[in-house]
């Protein structure tokens, strides 16, 4: 069973719908027991870093997540969940979970797209990911595949944790991680077949472990 962490941060049901469609057993939960006994964890979220962290601290879910990661339960962070596994976010100047060293930064207004037009913030729409290292989550996904992004802040982990990057005004990290701990800035649950393949790859890894 995959545990989808319920921390009142946005639309968790879209992740659940994708997992249900893939017939992957899952449960939206905020229970420490569920999370620590799960085979794998999905840490989604949309919204602001500040209020998300407040909720994680108040409910001790932050501590539970750290414990789960220390136990090597595989975890996949998505969007806000990708950002707050780092140490610090510029959004609301928030100290975040610190599961991977790095910061989360805001896109600067004066950046331009490759065709010279000023970027809109948030970065919203379909964009490609260039892998910098092998990543089992991308098995069977074409290099030209695109993923659906919606975000104003981007993760900037320490270099050794960068698995893939995308370009929007600048090259930024869109996939990060290490063994048993991955995070993607885009929404695999809204990225069509390539996104569903990524979720399936995560589950296949969880099952094989």
């Amino acid at each position: 069973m995959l545990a989808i962490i319920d921390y009142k941060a946005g639309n968790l049901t879209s992740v659940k719908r994708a997992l249900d469609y893939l017939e992957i057993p899952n449960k939206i939960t905020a229970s420490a027991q569920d999370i620590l006994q799960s085979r794998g964890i999905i840490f989604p979220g949309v919204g602001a870093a500040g209020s998300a962290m407040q909720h994680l601290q108040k409910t001790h879910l932050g501590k539970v997540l750290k414990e789960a990661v220390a136990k090597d339960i595989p975890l996949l962070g998505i969007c806000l969940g990708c950002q707050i596994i780092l140490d610090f976010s510029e959004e609301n100047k928030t100290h975040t979970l610190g599961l991977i060293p790095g910061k989360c930064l805001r896109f600067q207004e004066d950046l331009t797209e490759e065709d010279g037009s000023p970027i809109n913030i948030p970065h919203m729409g379909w964009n490609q990911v260039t892998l910098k290292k092998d990543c089992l989550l991308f098995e069977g996904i074409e290099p030209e595949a695109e993923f659906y992004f919606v975000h104003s802040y981007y993760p900037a982990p320490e270099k050794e944790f960068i698995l893939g990057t995308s370009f929007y005004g600048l090259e930024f990290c869109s996939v990060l991680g290490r063994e048993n701990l991955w995070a993607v800035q885009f929404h695999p649950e809204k990225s069509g077949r390539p996104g569903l393949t990524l979720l399936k790859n995560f589950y296949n890894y969880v099952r094989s472990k």
Partner: protein
Amino acid sequence: MLSKRIIPCLDVRDGKLTKGIKFKDNVDIGDPVETAKIYYEQGADEIVFYDITASHEGRSIMLKVVEKVAAQIFIPFSVGGGISSIEDMRAVLLAGAEKISINSAAVKNPSLISEGAEAFGSQCIVVGMDVLNVPVSSQIPSGYEVVIHGGRKPMGIDALWWAQEVEKLGAGEICLNSIDADGTKEGYELTLTRLIAENVRIPVIASGGAGHPEHMVEAVSKGKASAALIASIIHYGEWSIPEIKKYMHNQGVKVRLVW
């Protein structure tokens, strides 16, 4: 770099498509869920449902449609038509839509935009604008006027002013429909599209007038739009989404080619 989006629009009344969709093999489909699924599989980047149901019962039928779509389609989709309160927005988003689109209700009650953005995030709030070409005046300095109720009611509001206003209020996107171009199949209103797209920092979806993939190319190049809304050009089998994308790609437009 972001790909330019191709967005099919489906008109729904009482849970059915207002007109049957004819695919190339001449199969007529009246079910919005099935049609959306086909467009999803053909590479649509997003889907817009426009609910023209008037009755209260019809509204709950639409929510059922949204739930069914959300269980089978894993790209963003938005729902517009008849949404006039935060509760309406919440119901549609909880049923699984990624975005909601408001048009007349936003003109009548602009605070709906800011309240929606506050409650659900700007990325959820699309403001639809129906715009008519009018003589330049002190009231309408751009020569483009906002109209509501499907173009029947001029509002005395300048379209450029309104676009910048909805951005300030927290809209995440503008869907810009030219009443003059709508239904002509002669192309999008490029002057209008460019005027709005160059003067806001949120994405503009061009709408109205698509009859050939070249029109989509123009909308995103000359018109500077981020996306193009399409309807009859694909509904009646003249062009398919893969053909349109291939055409745009060959003209040098970045579009999503793997799905």
